[in-house]
């Protein structure tokens, strides 16, 4: 503790002369090895397994990283909201703000060789996997430099080299696909796992149980993560599921209920799940989380839930605020420093948007690319086949 006070004193005379980021770096270089013990908000509840402990070790560096990453995700989603209203983003746009702790906590527990697959609320998972703001905004605006070259859109972000397999629009389909990733990992004798994320809405899908059965039969290193934000579009969980205890729905498959608004709880659970899956096969994690936005930009999100409920969660359980409080209570940074980081992030996001706006629309020839890996020089057609034809490469 004495160390941090000294650093704070050092900071004051320097902040005028030196750019903010470098002084921050000086701050951490003395502190990032310090262990800090935190406790999760609530203990874990286990189903057919012994839950992990609720005390976790962390470092100031990790806390600051969590803060920065979640603040970036939060800012990106809010900016996407504005872009959508400005009609720069078209079609569907499903925002993740409120749920950032799941993306950030999961990344902290795993490597880029572990796989993640999710549904359409994928912008923040993409960032967590190493995607950039520019790639994200450019894709949302359907431009050539987007992560899917403008051909996917909001629901179809991918980053295969960092183990992110999308980005899927069909509710529930990503779960068998994720179990397929785990199948391939086991087949290739990798010591890695696959996380298949789905919502409380998708939790009732038959294909989920079909694939989970096979994962359990064959001991696949698959971790099913139910991001339970309590509403499947406009339908509350108690109206859709006879049993909304999603962590128990695996029946013979163990499960863990986790406070999804607490990044450390998420990290602990994912670490636990990875160890379990590599030894014993599939496990279900239910992340108790919340989305501030409606289901998508077409949904105000207030016809099926009260504004009091939304603001209540924001006040009591916001994941970013939790980390801010932890940072402040451990004197890792001051309130002003955190606010400055947020300002910096806002600037980064604005710059990314400006850069994304510069990116051109895809070339018309891109209509016909990537239909196949190997097109054999086959002909493809536009709307008027006598007018527009192409040879598939």
């Amino acid at each position, binding site marked *: 503790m004495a160390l941090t006070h000294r650093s704070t004193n050092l900071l004051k005379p320097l902040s005028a002369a030196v750019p903010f980021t470098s002084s921050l770096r000086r701050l951490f270089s003395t502190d990032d090895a310090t262990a800090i013990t935190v406790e999760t908000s609530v203990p874990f509840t286990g189903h057919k397994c012994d839950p992990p402990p609720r005390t976790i070790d962390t470092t100031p560096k990790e806390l600051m990283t969590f803060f920065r990453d979640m603040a970036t995700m939060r800012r990106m989603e809010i900016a996407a909201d504005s872009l959508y209203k400005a009609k720069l983003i078209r079609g569907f746009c499903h925002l993740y703000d409120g749920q950032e702790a799941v993306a950030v906590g999961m990344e902290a527990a795993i490597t880029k060789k572990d796989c993640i697959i999710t549904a359409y609320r994928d912008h923040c998972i993409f960032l967590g996997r190493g995607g950039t703001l520019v790639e994200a905004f450019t894709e949302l605006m359907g431009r050539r430099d987007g992560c899917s070259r403008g051909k996917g859109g909001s629901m*179809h972000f991918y980053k*295969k080299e960092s183990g992110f397999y999308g980005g899927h629009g*069909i509710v529930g389909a990503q779960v068998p696909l994720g179990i397929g990733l785990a199948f391939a*990992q086991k087949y290739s004798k990798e010591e890695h796992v696959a996380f298949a994320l789905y919502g409380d809405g998708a939790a009732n899908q038959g*294909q989920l149980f*079909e694939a989970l059965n096979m994962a359990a039969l064959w001991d696949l290193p698959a971790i099913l993560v139910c991001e339970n934000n309590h509403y499947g579009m406009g339908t509350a969980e108690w109206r859709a599921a006879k049993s909304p205890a999603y962590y128990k729905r695996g029946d013979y498959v163990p499960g863990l209920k986790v406070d999804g608004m607490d990044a450390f709880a998420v990290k602990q659970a994912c670490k636990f799940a990875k160890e379990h899956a590599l030894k014993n096969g599939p496990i279900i994690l239910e992340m108790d989380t919340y989305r501030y936005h409606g289901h998508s930009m077409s949904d105000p999100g207030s016809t099926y839930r009260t504004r009091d409920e939304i603001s209540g969660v924001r006040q009591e359980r916001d994941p970013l605020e939790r980390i801010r409080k932890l940072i402040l209570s451990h004197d890792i940074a001051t309130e002003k420093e955190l606010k400055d980081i947020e300002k910096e992030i806002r600037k980064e996001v604005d710059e990314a948007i400006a850069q994304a706006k510069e990116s051109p629309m895809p070339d018309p020839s891109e209509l016909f690319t990537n*239909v*196949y890996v190997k097109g054999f020089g*086959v002909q493809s057609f536009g709307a008027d086949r006598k007018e527009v034809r192409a040879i598939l490469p």
Partner: protein
Amino acid sequence: MLGIVRRRIARGGVNASIVEQSLQKIRNQSLIYASRSYSSASKEMTVRDALNSALDEEMSADPKVFVMGEEVGEYQGAYKITKGLLDKYGPERVVDTPITEAGFAGIGVGAAYHGLRPVVEFMTFNFSMQAIDHIINSAAKSNYMSAGQISVPIVFRGPNGAAAGVGAQHSQCYAAWFGACPGLKVLAPYSSEDARGLLKAAIRDPDPVVFLENELLYGESFPVSAEVLDSSFCLPIGKAKIEREGKDVTITAFSKMVGYALKAAEILAKEGISAEVINLRSIRPLDRSTINASVRKTNRLVTVEEGFPQHGVGAEICASVVEESFEYLDAPVERIAGADVPMPYAANLERMAVPQIEDIVRAAKRACYRSVPLAATA
């Protein structure tokens, strides 16, 4: 046969004119055989063995290839196509699944995302409807949506179309439905050569392939040359084969109907109509250039398929020919397809629901003689 005759002439013990006649007959026959491009090999192989050997060879060549489906392992395959593979490659590579098509098709596609090369078997393609979302949305479209990041080197295979007496829910042909989807390749073998060459090509292909077999063809034998038997044998995807050359009318067909079309061509030949029979082999990509080149030669077209007529493969072929070769058509395109009803069980009704050889003959004749009065309509 030619070899035997030559040897007899060399021994000098045969009358020259008889030899001449024999040689002419043999030449006529070998024109037919030559157009089938079978070498004069005596080796025959069933379609079943062709598929089995193709799977075996591809699994041996590439450790990433694995087979998954109901009863493919211990049961040796519901139709014995995967016979012996479990013993040879073990349960990690020949995976018996529970009866959960949506689940295992999705698992197969996910495995393909991660770089494996699954061969997913549907016991019949009727059950593929339970998994069709994964075939279309998870497999076919992924390479496009990800701008090339996520390729899906998967093969979905199994029997397609009508069998015998299995009723409405077990008899549908899915060529037209799958053939409509960009991002998929759809193949339909007829002979053992087709089965070997196309299955090998499908497994080696980096894109999702729907491989439509036919249960009634599994037991049929076809001659296979040494080239076909070689483990490197492969047929090109997207190329049709002219099974029989002709000049009066083009008949297109795929799978079992190729056999029917060839028999119809024999009957037509006796009546002085020379039919060119095209074995499509590839439903998607469709070999429009071979079909159009043939129609430009014969000026008449009959399309044959087992599936439902509306929005069928024949409809697409007809549209393609009308668009590309309209001036060459001397008669309207004739379409022979399954009846526009769910498949009935009773044997006489079932016979009426599936194209018969006489249907193809009649349609070809109609295409050739426009002066034949049409049957009176009710």
